[in-house]
Structure formats: C-alpha cells, structure tokens
C-alpha cells in the first residue's frame, strides 16, 4: 500500500508490523516522533507491546538488554546525545550477543549543541560491534527495519542492528513509501528466535559474566565471528525481501551508473539522493561519473567496494562527520579496502553537511568536476559548503 508519510512514520509502521514484545525508549529530537507514533499504537491497543518509558537513553538500552535476554523481541530508537549516553550499553549488547534493532535518526553530537543532521552519532558507534545500515530515503528505512530484525536474530549473528536515517531530512519530510501488507511483513519477520532466555527458569543461566584475561580475548573473537556472518545473511535476507516487496535489493551498496564510470563518489545516507542528481547532470554533459551508496557500513564490505571502484580514476569519498585527528571514517574504510589492489583510484576526502548544513546539487557537481584535476591521494581534508 502506497502512502505519503514521514520517515518517522515509516519506521513506526515497520515497528508496528514487527510488533516487538518490549520497546524501551526516551525522547530526543529528531527521533521523538517515532516513539510518539508507537506509543499511540500501544495506547490504542493496536500492538501488544510493553512500552517502557525510561528515564534516560542509557536505561532505554539497558532495559532492552534485560528484555532481550529474558527472551523477548525488543526495539528502540534514538539520536545524537542519546546514542552517546547509551553507547556504553551498546558495546555491552553486542558483547552479550543480543538482537536489538534500533533506528538512529542521525543528528550531530555536541558541542556545540545542534539538533540537525550529520553522521557523528553513527560514527560514535562505529566500533561498538553493532551492525550498521544506512538508508537514502523513508522507503529504505522502512524496508531495512524489517530486514534488520531478520539479520539481528539470525543464530549465526545475534547482534544489535542500527538502521540509520538522516535526522529531519528523512525523519520529518513526507515521502512516498510502499508498505507491505501486515501479514506479508509479519510472515517475513517471523517469530522471535530466543536464546537461553532468562524466563526459562527451569534452565537457569548466567548472562553477562566476568571474564579474566584467560577468556576475554576468546569471547571477543567469537563476537567478531558474529559480525563475519553478517554479509551472507544480509544478501539472503535482501533476496527474500526483494521477492515479497518487488523492490530490488542486491548487495551491500547501490551502484548508480557506476559500471563504466571514470569518476565516482561514495556517500552514506540521504545526500546520495542529491548525488544521483549531480551524476545525471554530469552524465548529460558527457562526463562519465557514478555513485556508490553503501547500505551496509558495519561490517564494512571491503572486497566488494574495492572491486566496484578498482577501475575508476578518482573517487570522492564524503564523510558527514569529522574523525578528529585523522581522515574521515568512510574515507579510511575505502582507502584500506583499496590498499591491497595493484591498480586503484586516486581518493579525495570531503567533509560535508555538518550540523544539518544542506548540500546542493551544484556543490556536488563541483566536487565531481574537481576530481580529474587531483594528481594524487593526499592525507588532507577537503570541505563542501564550508565558509572559510
């Protein structure tokens, strides 16, 4: 069913169809409306979910851990400072191998305080062990929230999954979204797969043990194996979802006019939509440009991305957050993915869009046009839309 809804509503609808047992959530702009929509469903009896209106984001994810370990299906959502506050617990959820799906309405991290979009919150969770998916629009946010549930609960994975959607740009704008029928969505997501639930009192288990140096390393290696299992499951889940939705998801990224591109751009999130327009404009002028839009960011699909970029002359990698003291996080991912190749493109790193700064088509066109002039890859940041 096609509806004109905001990104908030799209996520809330996916949550409604998933119908988790527990949702523990705390308000923060620009995520709040997701919680508000869901609370509306709960209070009107549309879903059988225990809504836990916690007193902080740290408690939100902590309650999610308790509920997941108990054997329930759980979800939450947050942004920015909320993610920062809960990130201690996010690492723990990953280490405890708990399948918690959360929407992250991307918003900049303080200071200064800013409520608008950038990716610094997602970047903070980069090494947390959570799986991270980025969405270009509300449709992808809805689709990937459903897929995330399957990925998180897979018995070879069992990790938290973060579905990123740009704050305000995607959360607050009305877009066309095709929603699956409830029964179709529910069948796709399936029943909650429990593992050693606390509530199985006849088989008492201990969750969250204390590990000395004799075991910590091995337990973390086992966690890494969970991450390593993601790519295969990701593809399978996409395949299944494509069949039931009619929307084609295949692979870890969308390659837009990339196949014969001489120059390319790599960018996460909604700015990819703007980049597609820049690509179209330049293609009309005869410049062979293309876009690589990763969906799966963690684990980073290094081989596949390197393969897709190997024959490109130069690539602009866009980061919507500083990684102070070094190059952008996405740039470093791409650069290290390309490193083993004998022939690889020149790379340029652009920081853009911080704190909700809008990025326009002409600005991205200019970035593409600069690429042929760049002699070599340099350890130096460039900026789009920054006033010097």
């Amino acid at each position, binding site marked *: 069913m096609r509806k004109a809804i905001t990104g908030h509503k799209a996520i809330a609808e996916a949550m409604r169809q998933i119908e988790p*047992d*527990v949702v*523990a959530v705390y308000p923060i702009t620009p995520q709040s409306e997701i919680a508000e929509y869901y609370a509306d469903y709960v209070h009107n009896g549309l879903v*059988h*979910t*225990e809504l*836990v*209106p*916690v*007193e*902080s984001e*740290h*408690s*939100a994810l*902590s*309650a*999610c*851990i*308790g*509920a*997941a*370990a*108990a*054997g*329930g299906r*759980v979800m939450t959502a947050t942004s920015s400072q909320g993610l920062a506050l809960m990130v*201690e*617990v996010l690492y*723990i959820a990953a280490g*405890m191998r708990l399948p918690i799906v959360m929407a992250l309405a991307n918003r900049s991290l303080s200071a200064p305080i800013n409520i608008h979009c950038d990716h610094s919150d997602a970047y903070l969770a980069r090494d947390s062990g959570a799986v991270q998916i980025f969405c270009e629009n509300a449709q992808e946010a809805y689709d990937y929230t459903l897929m995330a549930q399957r990925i998180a609960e897979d018995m070879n994975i069992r990790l938290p999954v973060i579905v990123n959607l740009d704050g305000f740009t995607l959360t607050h704008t009305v877009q066309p979204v095709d929603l699956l029928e409830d029964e179709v969505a529910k069948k796709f997501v399936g029943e909650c797969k429990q593992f050693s639930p*606390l*509530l*199985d*009192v006849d088989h*008492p*288990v*201990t*969750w*969250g*043990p*204390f*590990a*000395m140096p004799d*075991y910590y390393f091995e*337990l973390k290696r086992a966690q890494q194996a969970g991450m390593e299992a993601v790519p295969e499951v990701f593809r399978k889940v996409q395949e299944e979802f494509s069949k039931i939705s009619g929307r084609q998801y295949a692979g870890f990224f969308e390659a837009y006019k990339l196949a014969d591109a001489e120059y390319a751009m790599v960018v996460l999130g909604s700015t990819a939509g703007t980049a597609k327009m820049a690509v179209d404009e330049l293609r009309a002028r005869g410049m062979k440009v293309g876009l690589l839009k990763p969906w799966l960011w963690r684990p980073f699909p290094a081989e596949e991305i390197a393969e897709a970029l190997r024959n490109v002359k130069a690539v602009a990698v866009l980061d919507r957050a500083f990684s102070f003291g070094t190059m952008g996080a996405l740039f470093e991912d791409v650069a290290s993915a390309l490193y083993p190749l004998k022939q690889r493109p020149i790379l340029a790193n652009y920081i853009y869009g911080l704190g909700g700064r809008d990025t326009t088509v002409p600005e991205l066109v200019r970035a593409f046009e600069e690429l042929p002039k760049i002699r070599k890859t340099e350890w130096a940041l460039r900026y789009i839309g920054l006033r010097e």
Partner: protein
Amino acid sequence: MPSIKVLAEREERGARFTGGHTLCAGCAEPMVVRTVLNAIEDPVVVASPTGCLEVASSRFPGTAWNVPWIHVAFENAAAVISGVEAAYKALQKKGKISRRIRFVVFAGDGGTYDIGLQALSGALERGHDFLYVCLNNEAYMNTGVQRSSATPRYASATTAPYGEAIPGKPQKRKDLTEIVAAHGIPYVAQAAVSHLIDLANKVERAMKYEDPKFINVLTTCPLGWRTPRDSAVQQAKLAVETRYWPLYEVIEGQYKINYKPKERVPVEEWLKTQGRFRHLFRDPRGKELIAQIQAEVDRRWELLLQKEKCFGGGE
C-alpha cells in the same frame, strides 16, 4: 513467616546461590543473598550491577547462581530488571508464559546510592514488579574501599582517608531508604545481616505486592570496615543496638520501627570496634567528631520516631 527450618528445607530442595564463589571469607553479602532467595517460594530471576557480588559470583565459566541471573553494567541494574519484567509481562499477556516468576535485584550501595540512583528512581516511578535489595556495606568495596554516599561521616575510606587536614569522609551519609519511601512505593524497609529471620519475614511481606519493593540491608564488610573475619554478624548487631541503623518498614506509607533497643547504647561502642573509625580514638579531634556522629544518630532516630507517630501503622 518463614522459619529457619522452612528456609533450610527450601535450600535443600535446590540451592539458588552455591559455594564456589570467590567472595572474601566471612563476607556478609552471601548471607543476605541466600536468605532472600530462600525466603521467596516462586522462581526468581536476578539482576546485579557490577560489584563484589557480581564479580565474585560469575567468573567465566563458573557461576554460583543457580537461578537465572544477569549482569550488564554498574549503573543500570534497575533498568535491566525493568526490561526483564516487561518482557515477562508481554509474554504473559501473549499466553506464552503461565507460571509466576518474581524479579529481584541484588546491588551494592555504590550501584544504588550513587551511580545507580537514576535507574532505581525510574524503575520505582514506572511501577515495575520487582524487589530491590541493596547490600549496603557503606563504600565501593570491590574497587578498594572508596567512599560512596552511603559511607558514614568521619569513616576513613581510600578516597576520603583520615588525614591531618580532613579526618575521613566529611559528608553525612545519604538516607536512601527515605528517598525510596518518598517515591510512594508500597513496601520499603531497612534490615541488617545480624537479623536474617527479620529479613526473611520482610521479604515475605514485600513479595505480597506486585509493585516496586525495596529493602536496604546493612551488610558488614569485615575487610573494608577493618573488623575481624568472623565479625560480620556482631558488627551489624551493634549498628542496630546503637540505633545507627534502625530496623523499620514503611508499608503503604505507614512507618513501623521493628526493634527499639531498650537501653541507650552510645554509637561509640560500635565505632570503637572498627578500624575505619580508629582515628577517632587516637586523634585529639576525635571526641568532638564522635559527639557529632552521636548527635546525627539521635536526630535520625528521633525523626523516625516522629514519623512512626505521625504516619504510624498503629499497634
């Protein structure tokens, strides 16, 4: 009322907290844990924050817990148990679980009075059905006897040591039991490891409620308090006798002091048995400081008597 024989019978049927943990010899925490667990007939799920109990009972791959147990972090035991309880409610409503399960937190004073206070307050406000037992040994013992807001005034702690300029912890200890009572939950109590049957009775009374319940248990730490290895029970008894740690309940807002010592034993009798207060008996300032401690004990006791009078349960 669970007698000692009833508790023993229950443990014989299935020990919920076993030997093999690495808590100090003579530690009072397991005394409290075993008693509380044996005082509840229904199956229980337990959550603990980081602390002595958690670390010593769950070293991978050994666990002393024979009930479902979860540890997540230091400040969130109350939030974690909220989630467990919420999942239970959800699955119950869906008809996936039919048996009655109770939820218990065992947490130290560090993880309750300080870093865990927010999560506790939130859980109390939301009304989850759980029992929170604070094992109050009056400092961050697991990390080396650092002061917490539960540490009594003028006790020497490693981050508030007795010194030339400042003789131990300068602040009075927080009255967490009253803070919890102010949340308006139906069952709040103070107990002590010296009165374990009293504790068991309190647990039984508490568990009649399907609301948040809280028991603050004075739990001696012989190592941290610098008292002999076998002195845990005697230490707590003296704390109760000197009225430093009153045994009382607040049931649906009604105050009831469970034990009123007949004789007025000066708190000094308790202070002088502990190494953490030793400086009060060697330092010339000591007499004055002890007088301040006594005045505070008296003040709180009087206040409690007043509360019992104004909001008393009768009898």
